[in-house]
């Protein structure tokens, strides 16, 4: 479904990604793990075209993203939950969800998808008239995921959904990711919570200083000495 071949990207003269190649197949859940500053967020920004790639190519269902403007990426079925959630704090929960259904294709399905999101997150229905910025971290994460689902994406990109949340909430966020998979979404998830994320995905890539260091099934990576030593901390 999504294919990156030898992608390089960065900020100005600073290069953050080097020759990154990876693939997400339809129906899969794939994780990208790696330490702080590895370039995980940069990778998702490049896929959503928030930054330009300097070399290489990104394809979604065979279509190159090279000439697609950033605000049209969502029309290809790519939806991102950005790092730190980035809700519109002074819009209500429901208005945030409305923004998620902004595209012409999504608007007619707004009511239907709103019900779907409220069924997935009953808490959001209770809070629908609350300002998003006044909710707890876990609630905000639910709202951010709901917002990304409002466009009816084929592939959901999640950037550290468990960051900054209490351990109990972290658990419920991973349960949620599992549930979203069962709904039939393809998922690409960036995480530092390695042990937890490897339990919910099929495959994973290890990114270090902008390069893919390891790739394999979740079980393979979990068993690898490198991951054990540096990330799982056993």
């Amino acid at each position, binding site marked *: 479904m999504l294919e990156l071949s030898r992608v390089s990207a960065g900020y100005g003269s600073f290069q953050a990604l080097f020759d990154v190649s990876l693939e997400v197949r339809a129906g899969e859940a794939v994780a990208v793990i790696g330490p702080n500053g590895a370039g995980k967020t940069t990778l998702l920004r490049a896929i959503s075209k928030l930054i330009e790639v300097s070399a290489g190519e990104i394809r979604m269902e065979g279509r190159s993203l090279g000439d697609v403007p950033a605000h049209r990426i969502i029309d290809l079925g790519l939806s991102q939950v950005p790092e730190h959630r980035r809700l519109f704090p002074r819009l209500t929960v429901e208005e945030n969800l409305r*923004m998620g259904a902004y595209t012409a294709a999504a608007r007619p399905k707004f009511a239907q998808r709103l019900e779907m999101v409220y069924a997935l997150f009953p808490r959001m229905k209770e809070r629908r008239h609350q300002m998003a910025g006044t909710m707890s971290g876990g609630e905000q994460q639910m709202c951010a995921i709901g917002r990304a689902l409002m466009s009816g994406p084929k592939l959901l990109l999640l950037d550290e959904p468990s960051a900054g949340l209490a351990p109990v909430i972290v658990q419920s966020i991973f349960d949620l990711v599992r549930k979203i998979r069962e709904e039939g979404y393809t998922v690409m998830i960036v995480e530092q919570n390695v042990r937890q994320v490897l339990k919910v995905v099929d495959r994973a890539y290890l990114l270090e200083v902008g390069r893919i260091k390891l790739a394999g099934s979740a079980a393979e990576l979990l068993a690898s000495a490198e991951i054990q030593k540096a990330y799982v901390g056993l």
Partner: protein
Amino acid sequence: MQIFDIFLLEAVLNGILFGGVLALLALGLNLIFGVIDVVWICYAELMMLGMYCVFFLHKVHGLPLVAAFGAAVVLVAFLGVLLHVLVIRPVLNSEPINQLLVTGGVLTFLQAAATLAFGIDFRNLGVSMPSLAVGEISLPWSRISAALTALVAMTALYVFLKKTYLGTAIRAISQDRAIMPLMGVSPSRIYLLTSAIGGALAGLGACLLVLQYDVHPAIGLTFGPLTFMVCVLGGLGNMLGGFIAAFIFAQLIAVGGFYFHLEWGYVMAFGFFIIMMFARPQGILGAK
């Protein structure tokens, strides 16, 4: 002096009517600042051009007043877009001081250009509307209709911002511009639309003002600072705050002018503004 003074009541009512117009003027400037984070210092000069537009189309070329009004709104909306593309967009990420300087430059330019093109004469639209007389109170219809139009325009804008996708995007973009493309929103298009709406509001303001005031190249100096102060008093970018501040300001001017002299009304209003800037520098409803 009597306890209940009928002329004081008239002054208060006039203040309310003037407040409605001031609120509309502040609305466009607040919208632009709230969304794009840039102050159109030349806002009142755009109104001046709108006033000339109405004057020439109606008085000189004999177009019906309503058609002249429509043309002025469209013209100034277009000028707003032009201002954004030619002047604002290049300095969007510059220091605020640079942004103030360029729009200030446009102010001077428009004033000078208007002087060259139209001369320094005061021109009067010459539309005389009767007054509404209730007992001893008389209120000019030009003021009443201006205030009512302002009210309708403000309500329409409110509904648009609250109920539509575009309106929601306009409110959202001021909170997080960088992620707007993830929603499928092109920020530059939202900025163009916002500039057009801000311009249209300035154009509508021009229509309301030209009914009551003569137009001349420096008219912007009368209403520009006033509009700006109303916005700052309410909390720059805060539309509800601007709305409240407009009525406070107008009331001070009207009632102060009634007790002393019209000029004193302005002195009181500006004095109040200065005190408030010490007491509540962020504005009545401003955050921070």
